[in-house]
């Protein structure tokens, strides 16, 4: 198929960017979206032009490196997939595709389609852990039975890949879905309860400091999340936060 691409090009963080038009032929349905961009880049390199830079690594939907706002949607039109798992069979011959970086104040553009998501790092560093030493001298793994329902729900929250699609999907650029997924994982497990009060306060404080917006419950994040992280996590985080702050 033949595609008309409109791609955001930006030299670096301090230079203004713009949309540049490219036409690409010979795209097949079995190609992934990133393989389509690989072909474009091979063409650009062969002409001596600088290729379009984009973040990617595992190309199997788990590392959370790839991003891209495709026709206005984070990770494109398909559901429950990252951009690297999006296949060109979802598009038609002659389509125009607009490709932009994830847009949020807290995610400044580094180059072309690459954004800086280190704000997520700092939220995790603020409290996204259980304070246990890694000596291995803990109790036997089976000495605290955990209800399967809670363990499964903790796992569902823990599947977040930290890609930032939730932020890019949100009209307020809120990071509530991301932050609440980590808060929920630990809040649901007995090991995590010990520090639950401090954790939720520290992580929310850092989230606010980074300049993410607030949640107005539109649910766009849940729809666009490639891992199907549920909005319930935000409700749980709000509950945790409320009870933490009311305890003083």
């Amino acid at each position, binding site marked *: 198929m033949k595609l008309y691409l409109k791609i955001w090009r930006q030299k670096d963080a301090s230079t203004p960017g713009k949309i540049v038009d490219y036409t690409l032929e010979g795209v097949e349905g079995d190609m992934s979206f990133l393989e389509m961009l690989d072909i474009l880049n091979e063409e650009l390199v062969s002409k001596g032009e600088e290729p379009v830079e984009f973040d990617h690594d595992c190309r199997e939907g788990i590392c959370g490196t790839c991003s891209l706002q495709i026709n206005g949607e984070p990770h494109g039109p398909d559901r429950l997939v990252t951009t690297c798992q999006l296949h060109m069979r979802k598009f038609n011959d002659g389509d125009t595709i607009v490709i932009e970086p994830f847009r949020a104040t807290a995610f400044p553009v580094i180059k072309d389609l690459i954004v800086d998501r280190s704000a997520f*790092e700092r939220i995790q560093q603020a409290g996204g852990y259980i304070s246990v030493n890694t000596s291995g001298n803990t109790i036997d793994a089976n000495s605290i039975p955990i209800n*399967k329902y809670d363990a499964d729900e903790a796992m569902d929250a823990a599947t977040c890949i930290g890609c930032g699609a939730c932020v890019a999907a949100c009209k307020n650029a809120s990071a509530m879905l991301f932050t609440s997924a980590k808060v929920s994982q630990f809040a649901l497990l007995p090991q995590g309860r010990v520090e639950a009060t401090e954790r939720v306060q520290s992580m929310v404080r850092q989230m606010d400091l980074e300049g993410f917006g607030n949640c107005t419950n539109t649910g766009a994040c849940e729809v666009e999340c490639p891992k199907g992280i549920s909005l319930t996590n935000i409700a749980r985080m709000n509950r945790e936060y409320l009870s933490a702050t009311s305890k003083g």
Partner: protein
Amino acid sequence: MGILDSKIPSGPLADKWTKHKNDINLVNPANKRNIDIIVVGTGLAGGAAAATLAELGYNVKTFCYQDSPRRAHSIAAQGGINAAKNYQGDGDSNYRLFYDTIKGGDYRSREGNVYRLAEVSGNIIDQCVAQGVPFAREYGGMLDNRSFGGVLVSRTFYAKGQTGQQLLLGAYSAMNRQINRGKIQAYNRHEMMDLVLVDGKARGIIARDLVSGEIERHSAHAVVLATGGYGNVFFLSTNAMGSNVMAAWRAHRKGAFFANPCFTQIHPTCIPVSGDHQSKLTLMSESLRNDGRIWVPKKKEDAIAIREGKLKPTELAEEDRDYYLERRYPAFGNLVPRDVASRAAKERCDAGYGVNKTGEAVFLDFASAIKRYGKEKALTSGLKNPDEKTIIKLGEEVIEAKYGNLFQMYEKIVDQNPYKTPMMIYPAVHYTMGGLWVDYNLQTTIPGCYCAGEANFSDHGANRLGASALMQGLADGYFVLPYTIGDYLSDDIRTGAIPTDSKEFDEAEQQVRDRMAKLMGGSGIHSVDYYHKKLGKIMWNKCGMARNAKDLESAITEISELRKDFWENVKVTGSIDSKNQELEKAGRVADFLELGELFAKDALHRNESCGGHFREEYQTEEGEALRDDKNFKYVAAWEYTNEPKDAKLHKEDLVYENIELKTRSYK
């Protein structure tokens, strides 16, 4: 051969590690504050080591090329992690895990290392649960297990099909705790460009900030390389696009021996190649072989009809299917080790029974598991005499709960529903058992340069068993390296900070700058990917699942010529002093072009078949691997000279005091 002293402690196998820990020197907590350690790579091994070292009190700097430590490729491991917990009461023990691993590795790994691995495996599970890793549980609240290839017990712990992700996030959270305390400085989007030696000791690295392009100097009292495997030398592999050998290869060029490079794992269950545009291959977890049955048609005409789309696999009668693993290996069936399963798939496809349009795919079929689970579920749900449709519906639900994310991934890539029609799979490069040579302390042949996880060669011999990579990565990082490195650092308590304005740092930085300038200065005929793909083709065709002397000899010549062409004619766009993904790739491919040659040389010199290394000249009448213990019961550790083909061989004899060497049989 004094230099290749493995330093395995004396004494009975089960006491070696405890004894060693009691014998080695410690650094007192106040002195640890004066010691700096660099950890390159932040996957399971590097992340776990960084967190633990910082917790102990050392000043740690971590480096990763990704934008976050959480994105290291350990994250993609699916199926699980082994531990000899014997929670299932099926007779598991440290000894059994040790024995399975040595046998699975085709008797090419060290007894002492492997026993230590088995010994600490249980601690890993305890540790991870304490960190909040949400492993799968049974209804009674206890941890669940599944089976993996090459063993007869159920010892694999898992978190859906995302075990690597959950374990890595556990290590990452331990790192974050230390970053928050200021004990780890994390340098993300940074690449190690070279190792710096001062007075023969590893004392720092030259790194490139991948955003600004700036070249930086970082010093330390010891350097830990935990930079993963080199599977991307094949271009197409299940590794991440950025996975590379650069850090290990730079260390190799500075004096670290590279061991057993030809021991590479080709994983049997990957999604087949669909076309020339393909950039990477996707694994389907080995755990699927718990329930999936592997087959091809018995008759060639049926295979041809399926390839041409004239016959559906579901229409083929049971008696017309060849469940070749169950036929050839009745004791282990579909759960034979990876090397055996991969070769068997290749054998059937080479014989003309492949089932996709390229003829390079076999079926992985869940129909009988769906029926089996459906019947069981119907019974436990109180349904009497359920109809076929209900059974299948219930069975599909059970399969979805177990492997849902894998099935979804398959469907997205292949555009077929694996609940309704069998999956198509084919072997692909997945893991590298070879790597930097290390002693029992995980120290390379460069003093102060340590190597952990997949990047070292140590524990898996010639073939790794499923769910053992995660085990080794975390064992090295959490429980081995933090102890052993203290022994070395106890000499450094009075050294003080290592200055970065020395001539050694000047020289190393200059070399890095010259190399980049040379990469940018090619005549500009071909792109970096052009060379990488060409190298990959040579590797796959001549150093892949089956190798022979003639092909390996020609591979050495071809790679050497390709490398020369690369340095003369590669085209790298952009500039050195800015974000430049083409330059990043070029540096990595340049090193793959050297490693590939050493790989072929190693494969050529090893005149035997063992584990993942199958030489066509050395096989039994039934086509099984024919090992030669008399001549090759050693680790081949290569010393860099100048050209990889001239590398100098050092041998470490493998001593078996507790296990009798046997022909590996899974029949």
